[in-house]
């Protein structure tokens, strides 16, 4: 269970958001919507433990998640704007390395490739893949690492319809197994019954004060 309690974050001394509270029980999903610069990515990084919350607490199963950031990191997967894959490898090699680093048997890479519709590209160097195909490789980390908490920043950018459908199936399986998903997007996500957290446009005087 992931609980945010009055989380606030700052960037460069300027408040990005404040008072963000929610509770996500196993199987739940939360989508983050709002205009550019509203703080969706910042919130995802705070939830991942990469960013520091200016105020508030983040709890996992009732315990402070930030007390041990390495332990918190080990229970989540983050897919950010950057695909974070090395283009010198083939798809299969890249996912085998990802698997080893995630502490799972690299043999699971095959199943992850099938889940994201990459099986026919297994031996293709990532260098020659399109943006959408690279995105699929980055997303294949999710079913590979099998962490309970998925943090997705604009996961469907560059994906085609089949890619979105594959991601939808992977996310549905994750939630059915008791996983939690927090995803930001400007596009409709294949996440049925997801709660929504809407970031509002900041009041003008606030921006001026910064």
């Amino acid at each position, binding site marked *: 269970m992931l609980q945010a309690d009055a989380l606030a974050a700052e960037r460069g001394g300027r408040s990005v958001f404040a008072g963000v509270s929610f509770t996500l029980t196993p199987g739940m999903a939360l989508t983050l919507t709002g205009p550019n610069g509203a703080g969706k990515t910042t919130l995802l990084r705070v939830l991942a433990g990469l960013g520091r919350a200016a105020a508030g607490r983040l709890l996992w199963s009732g315990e402070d998640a930030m007390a041990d950031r*390495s332990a918190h990191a080990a229970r989540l997967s983050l897919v950010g704007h950057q695909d*974070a894959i090395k283009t010198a490898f083939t798809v299969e090699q890249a996912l085998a390395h990802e698997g080893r680093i995630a*502490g799972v048997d690299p043999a699971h890479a095959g199943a992850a490739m099938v889940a994201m519709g990459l099986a026919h590209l297994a031996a293709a160097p990532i260098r020659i893949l399109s943006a959408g195909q690279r995105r699929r490789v980055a997303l294949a980390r999710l079913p590979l690492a099998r962490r309970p908490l998925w943090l997705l920043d604009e996961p469907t950018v560059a994906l085609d319809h089949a890619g979105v459908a594959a991601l939808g199936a992977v996310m549905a399986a994750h939630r059915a197994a008791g996983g939690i998903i927090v995803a930001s997007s400007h596009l409709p996500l294949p996440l049925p019954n997801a709660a929504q957290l809407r970031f509002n446009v900041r009041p003008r005087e606030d921006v001026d004060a910064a």
Partner: protein
Amino acid sequence: MSIFWGMLRRDLALARRNAGDTLAAVAFFLLAVGLFPFGVGPAPELLARIAPGVVWVAALLAALLPLDRLLGADYEDGTLDQAMLSGLDPALVAGAKAAAHWLSTGVPLLIASPLAAIMLNLPLEGLGVLVAALALGSLILSLLGTAGAALTLGARRGGVLLPLLVLPLAIPALIFGVAAVEAAASDMAVRPHLAMLAAMAAAALPLCPLAAGAALRAATE
């Protein structure tokens, strides 16, 4: 610990695929050493006298070449964020990076160093000590360099800043490394110098990854 080996293994696989980077460092090293006979004149006894220093300085500079991209590439493509989220302590992430740098740059330089020394007419009895001292010295430089690369992450012109930060810290290793080779060439005790180098490596082994880990944490925040 399997995460540590996983990261090291990936970095070494990458280094093998981008073998040009390693070759460039080795070629730079041999070329820099090869320039000295042209610069100072081909007098064998003069070259033999300056050989330890020249080999050491050229190796230090060559080992600096790939440092800029060691963490910079990961920082830019998001791999560093993922490394910080692997569940491995940031200090160990930095340790894996330093190990990858040493294995993919330090060791090849080490293998090339006897050739460089012979090019400068270093007495053969000094060769073994040169390699031993350089093994410790390159390890120290990999550790210092990783810390420097982590500290300059995200800084504008970090590639220029990096040598300015790392080279002064490498001076003690340079002094004792060169002294060890000179001692061997003049039949004096070598072990005190090597022991000093080993002590420096032993100090850098925990301290540099800790500093680099803190810097990585700050850079990804």
